[in-house]
């Protein structure tokens, strides 16, 4: 899933300072699962905007903001969008971009989009995949260093780790520690001996 987080409401109000007659579009996919674009969050945003003196003409939560077919399909779901002079999209950057393509009404983002990650056992896991377009994750025991190493190294760790922690994010384990342990358990440490040349790696 695409990991996004809610912008502070103050920032959203600043974005919308010259706008009114706002239509809110949520997202029933990733943003809903992350509680930053589902129906409860959309209704809360509706209330907050009204309290801040903005007129909200309506709202709708499509199954996925990034897969909305057309502006007319939105109108079928909630005709009040016709009265909108701006939209606030509670989805990732893809969702905002897809909605923005459909009309000339300005589309404002309510979220900051972070990375391609996941949600497992209640935990949001970010930066799992760098979307490099050339998947090699098998060689690393299913733990992608392109996604999870801040230096995107494929030939092994940098020298910056202290006590197995990442140089950049000390709250995290160095991904190379995790890869090593996983491949050790799988009895496939041989996979780590491969030297990745520059030609084998998509930028």
């Amino acid at each position, binding site marked *: 899933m695409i990991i996004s987080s809610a912008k502070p409401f103050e920032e959203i109000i600043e974005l919308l300072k010259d706008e009114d007659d706002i239509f809110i579009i949520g997202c029933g996919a990733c943003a809903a699962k992350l509680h930053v674009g589902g129906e409860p969050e959309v209704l809360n945003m509706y209330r907050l905007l009204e309290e801040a003196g903005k007129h909200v003409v309506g709202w709708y939560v499509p199954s996925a903001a990034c897969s909305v077919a057309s502006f007319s399909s939105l109108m079928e779901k909630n005709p009040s969008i016709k009265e909108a002079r701006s939209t606030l999209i509670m989805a990732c950057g893809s969702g905002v971009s897809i909605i923005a393509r459909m009309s000339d009404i300005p589309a404002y983002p309510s979220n900051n989009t972070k990375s391609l990650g996941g949600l497992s056992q209640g935990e949001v896991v970010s930066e799992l995949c760098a979307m490099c377009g050339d998947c090699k994750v098998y060689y690393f025991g299913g733990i992608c260093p392109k996604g999870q190493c801040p230096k995107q190294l494929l030939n092994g*760790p940098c020298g*910056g780790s202290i006590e197995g922690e990442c140089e950049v994010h000390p709250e995290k384990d160095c991904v190379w520690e995790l890869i090593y342990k996983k491949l050790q358990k799988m009895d496939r440490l041989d996979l780590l001996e491969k030297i990745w040349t520059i030609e084998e790696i998509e930028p």
Partner: protein
Amino acid sequence: MILKTGPAYNPSMSQTFKNKLISDDFLITAEVSPPKGTDLSESIADADIIRNWADALNVTDNQRAVMRMSPVAVSKNLLDAGHEVIMQLTCRDRNRLALQSELLGAFALGVRNMCVMTGDHTTKGDHPGARPVYDMDSVQLLDIIRRMKEGHDLAGNVIDKPPAFTVGAVTNTDPSKNMQMMKLRKKSKMGLDFIQTQAVYDIGQFEAFMEAIGDIEVPVIAGLIPLKSAKMAHFMNENVPGINVPAEVTQRMANAEKPIEEGISICSEAINELKELCRGIHIMPIGKHVNTPKILEIAGIRKKNND
């Protein structure tokens, strides 16, 4: 207009580090930092303190991701002042085009020794918002230098008068760090002429490291940072990757009446032990090289008279 190039640059002298690597000499290298500014006099003065003590001077490349003068410019000035240099080159700030063009430029200006490394992340430095590049890693950079030396750039185009660098890489020295040891093996497969290490305090651990990489036939130059206080020892243990100051060393510093002198003694003792374990030492003082000649003298290293 005719540009005059390198008044004091002497190609035969610049090969001496390469020749020394294949000799039996115990090698001394030392770090010199580029200035934060345009005045080179402090860097030149620091290098002069260890003139004829060091076999070559490492010129750092925005070390700890703190912006300083280009190592190419500083290297050229040190060469002109008659020093042998090892230019450091990181993967942090340059993509593959910039790395290759920097290598050509450095060689053209007389740099013959290149030590490559990944580089501390930009978030650790004084421009934390800078976009880190890491277009390639240190293993790949070594591969590219090898290819350039063979006469081709990364795209396969012919390079006129290939840069015949003597090439080094860096490593931490904890043999229990399996992935780091694996990466060092990958580096050595790319054709290394020398290895310089992170600072060593635990000689026993270093000995185990040398045993663990005994199959890698590349000269190892052990890093040393003279301690100035027990506080500094604590700080490095907590904050500097790859450094392990044993408790007894910290205790010696804590007990010392003159901690600077104690740090000098500890460093000299380490050199004497390292003489039996590896091919040389690399001194990286915090600050200037004021105590470096004294450390080397106590360790029985003799000043060279090669000019």
